[in-house]
């Protein structure tokens, strides 16, 4: 084959060759081949070199250089393939299976692998070196010939370089071609183990050795390419390595350089890079964990600086950093240009390091970000406490820019975990608010917030109690609410409060709301579509408005919210026994800021009624003194007027109030009429109309062995008072006395039965029940039987019927006006879709009362009719029920 090639190559000069010359060529070629053979096979013996040189010279005389070195390389390759590569891979043969299953590697195995790897690498590099020497012999031979013939030529160096690189290429291609699949795995694993060892030693010493400048030079000789490196390590002081660490790094450096020697540059880099990344990932996971209460980013960065960068620094300086220097010239990272104070070494090294640092930090950011995004739901659940985690996430996202990942993952988490039938509306709202706050930190532009918030809003719109919950969130948390929802509901009021404070601060700064008018204008300017508002220009207070705005955005209009608030406020005010409405006033003032004064007008009147009532009440009390002398009627009850307080309301401005008629006990009735007479005296042509079922009565029931305190509705008080004169009542008779229907009475009296005050027995004679007042001894067991005065303050009845008609009831009442229209329409048209009914109503009901209901309201009314079985609903159209 070689002969043939030679023959072809030299075809042109073949003619000129004499028989002797041919003879000589073939002889020396055979000699050369033999010499090559002996040179390569004789380990450590270069004696065949001179023999070979002679043949080479002779061959060169006939211009056969290429033939010479090609043959030489081919035989080198064959030799290497036969000896080096096979032997090298054989070392790793036992670990073929182990390396596949990563889990059950033991430390024994680790040591073995390390040993084997080192040994194998050493062997192969020895082999390598020997072969290189052989190659150098050839080069020398070629060189001497050249020197003889053309003494002035200087192309020799390039020839040598060329041959060496050719050789390198050959070696690595041979190895690569026969690369077992598990070898990269072994490498990676090796680096991982070493790095862990290293980080362990570093973690151990970084505490005590942190700023001690140590002078033990890293023993980096044996590689004289970089004589300056060791001194530099002293300068930067970042390497506080002691002996064990140095040795470790040296070992690793040795392995890496050996690997490079056999052409595994990228594989080695891959291996230790992936090892570093693995370690970094583990570290991030370890540091970040499930604790959102502390910021971990800085400690991660510190760790990167301390362990992997330290390691890389040592490694790169050990290796002379040649490869990263080559690459760093073309791609300049913007961050690489910043001055690096901590590594004032040569440019190439620090640039390589910066590159690494950027890579590592990006990776750390990304890992942390992924971790945090995965847990974002939990983070937001405990939002105010998890602020550090949010801050971390924000910084990570700033770096990586993968916001869309956040949105996607968070939305799916929401769908899966929050927006389900099992979650209470309150929780959803709370999470929504937290989400708004948290995401605002991450993304001040509000773009992703919009994307994330939409599913929640969409879902909440489908819930019936959303408005109620929102209002509760808005108004509660003032401390007056004992039923434990305090922490869940105080957030919004808190929000409003804070905003108020901010506005007050703002007022100092820029004379913002010094006068009411301006405040009103500011409130009026505020429109619920704050999502689009530019938060960059908005101050902090603007952002707060945003939160409320986003909540109002769930409902769609503030009117519904205000209406619901009015109902709740009415309920609350009517159940007040003192006139303490400070917190309500505060809430109202805050609401006025947000919703405008006009929409809160009715609520304001309601509060005003309370204030007026307080004044009137004390006025009436004040007249008692004089009145008791003149009036004869109130002679016996005059002093007892003290116990009567009244809330006097302007009923036009309150939500419709549910009235219930029953007879009050005579004395109380007397008191009330007395009170209203006095009222009329004071406020002349005005008079009072008592809402007998409303209000609150404080009772102290005295039994022989105890006193019990109650706060009850008037109707309950009236019932129990009947039992003072007569200890047991037939239900029918009692109902007649009370002026209540029997079933209502039975329901009401349950309150006392539950409290253990009244016992219920069946009447022997017929239908109806006997109610008997239980005297103390009967249920002393209930109170622990300690006799003395046992005070109980019980909450108002929890029968769930409010004193104020709910919004739904109001709506139903208003809608009944249109019922006839709807029925008429359906009779005429047979069947109609919701839209059509809505539009027709809008078209025809223009006169008093104008049809002003929303499609949703109509729908809920119609579904009410369906459930009453008056309409039928099928395939999206309504029919009359036949």
């Amino acid at each position, binding site marked *: 084959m070689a002969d043939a090639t030679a023959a072809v190559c030299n075809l042109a000069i073949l003619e000129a060759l004499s028989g002797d010359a041919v003879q000589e060529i073939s002889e020396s070629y055979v000699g050369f081949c033999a010499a090559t053979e002996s040179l390569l096979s004789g380990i450590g013996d270069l004696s065949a070199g001179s023999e070979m040189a002679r043949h080479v010279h002779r061959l060169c005389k006939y211009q056969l250089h290429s033939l010479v070195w090609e043959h030489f390389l081919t035989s080198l390759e064959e030799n290497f393939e036969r000896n080096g590569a096979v032997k090298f891979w054989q070392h790793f043969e036992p670990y073929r299976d182990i390396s596949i299953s990563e889990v059950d590697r033991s430390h024994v195995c680790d040591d073995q692998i390390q040993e084997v790897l080192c040994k194998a690498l050493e062997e192969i590099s020895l082999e390598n070196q020997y072969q290189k020497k052989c190659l150098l012999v050839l080069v020398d031979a070629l060189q001497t010939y050249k020197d003889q013939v053309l003494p002035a030529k200087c192309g020799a160096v390039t020839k040598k370089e060329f041959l060496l690189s050719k050789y390198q290429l050959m070696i690595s291609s041979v190895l690569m071609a026969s690369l077992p699949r598990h070898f990269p795995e072994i490498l990676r694993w090796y680096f991982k183990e070493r790095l862990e060892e290293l980080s362990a030693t570093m973690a151990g010493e970084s505490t005590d050795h942190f700023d001690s400048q140590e002078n033990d030079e890293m023993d980096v000789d044996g590689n004289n390419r970089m004589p300056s490196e060791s001194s530099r390590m002293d300068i930067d002081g970042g390497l506080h390595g002691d002996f064990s660490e140095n040795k470790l790094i040296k070992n690793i450096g040795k392995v890496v350089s050996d690997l490079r020697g056999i052409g595994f540059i990228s594989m080695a880099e891959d291996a230790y890079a992936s090892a570093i990344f693995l370690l970094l990932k583990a570290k991030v996971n370890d540091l970040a964990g499930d604790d959102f209460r502390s910021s971990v980013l800085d400690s991660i960065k510190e760790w990167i600086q301390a362990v992997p960068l330290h390691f890389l620094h040592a490694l790169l300086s050990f290796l002379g950093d040649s490869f990263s220097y080559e690459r760093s010239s073309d791609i300049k990272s913007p961050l690489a240009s910043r001055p690096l104070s901590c590594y004032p070494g040569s440019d190439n090294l620090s640039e390589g390091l910066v590159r690494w640092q950027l890579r590592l930090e990006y990776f750390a950011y990304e890992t942390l970000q992924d971790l945090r995004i995965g847990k974002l739901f939990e983070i937001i659940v405990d939002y105010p406490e998890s602020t550090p985690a949010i801050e971390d996430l924000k910084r990570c996202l700033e770096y990586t820019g993968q916001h869309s990942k956040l949105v996607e993952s968070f939305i799916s988490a929401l769908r899966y975990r929050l927006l389900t039938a099992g979650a209470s509306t309150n929780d959803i709202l709370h999470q929504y608010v937290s989400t708004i706050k948290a995401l605002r930190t991450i993304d001040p532009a509000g773009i992703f917030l919009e994307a994330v918030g939409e599913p929640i809003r969409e879902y909440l719109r489908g819930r019936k109690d959303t408005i109620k919950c929102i209002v509760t969130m808005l108004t509660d948390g003032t401390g007056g609410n004992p039923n434990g929802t305090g922490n869940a509901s105080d957030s919004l009021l808190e929000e409003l409060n804070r905003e108020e404070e901010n506005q007050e601060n703002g007022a100092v700064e820029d004379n913002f709301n010094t006068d009411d008018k301006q405040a009103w204008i500011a409130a009026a300017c505020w429109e619920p579509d704050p999502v689009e508002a530019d938060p960059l220009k908005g101050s902090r207070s603007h952002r707060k408005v945003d939160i409320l705005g986003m909540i109002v955005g769930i409902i769609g209009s503030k009117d519904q919210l205000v209406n619901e608030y009015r109902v709740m406020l009415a309920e609350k005010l009517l159940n007040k026994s003192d006139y303490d409405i400070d917190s309500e006033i505060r809430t109202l003032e805050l609401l006025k800021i947000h919703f405008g004064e006009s929409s809160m007008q009715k609520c304001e*009147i309601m509060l005003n009624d309370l204030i007026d009532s307080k004044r009137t009440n004390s006025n009436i009390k004040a007249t008692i003194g004089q009145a008791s002398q003149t009036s004869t009627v109130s002679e016996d009850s005059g002093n007892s007027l003290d*116990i009567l307080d009244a*809330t006097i309301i*302007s009923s*036009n401005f309150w939500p419709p109030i549910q009235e219930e008629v029953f007879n009050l006990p005579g004395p109380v009735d007397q008191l009330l009429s007395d009170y209203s007479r006095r009222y009329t005296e004071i*406020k002349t042509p*005005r008079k009072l*109309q008592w809402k007998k079922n409303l209000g609150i009565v404080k009772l102290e029931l005295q039994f022989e062995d105890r006193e019990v305190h109650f706060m009850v509705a008037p109707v309950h008080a009236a019932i129990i008072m009947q039992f*003072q004169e007569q200890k047991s009542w037939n239900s029918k008779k009692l109902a007649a006395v009370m002026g209540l229907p029997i079933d209502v009475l039975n329901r009401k009296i349950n309150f006392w039965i539950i409290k253990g005050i009244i016992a219920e027995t069946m009447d022997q004679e017929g239908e109806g029940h006997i109610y008997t007042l239980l005297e103390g001894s009967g249920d002393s067991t209930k109170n622990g039987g300690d006799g003395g005065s046992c005070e109980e303050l019980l909450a108002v009845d929890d029968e769930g019927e409010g004193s104020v008609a709910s919004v739904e009831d109001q709506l139903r009442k208003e809608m009944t006006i249109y019922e006839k229209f709807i029925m008429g329409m359906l009779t005429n048209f047979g069947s109609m879709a919701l839209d059509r009914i809505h539009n027709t109503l809008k078209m025809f009901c223009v006169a008093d009362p104008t049809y002003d209901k929303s499609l949703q309201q109509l729908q809920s009314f119609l579904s009410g009719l369906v459930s009453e079985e008056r309409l039928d609903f099928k395939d999206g159209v309504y029919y009359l029920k036949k």
Partner: protein
Amino acid sequence: MGTRPLSDGIFFTCALPSYTMLKEDEIYRSMISWHAVASWTWDAQDETCGICRMAFDGCCPDCKLPGDDCPLIWGSCNHAFHLHCILKWVNSQTSQAHCPMCRREWQFKE
């Protein structure tokens, strides 16, 4: 309740007498306070003001708070209006003002 029996033994003998004895004022003793709710209304014959057509129990268009801040006023003809409404009316008339309802000469009652 000073006469309350101190032990159960005595209680059984005198429970009833003490109860009936205290019956008269028991209700007040056992009732600490009664907080009632009432609504006020102007004792006018009509529902709405003839001038602004707003409810008497509400307030005139210029007012925000009903009641004392926006009182009613009766003319000698016994027609009632919001004070602010009728004042506006009276002031707008150049000569003698008349009751908007009955066209009689407007005189404030008393």
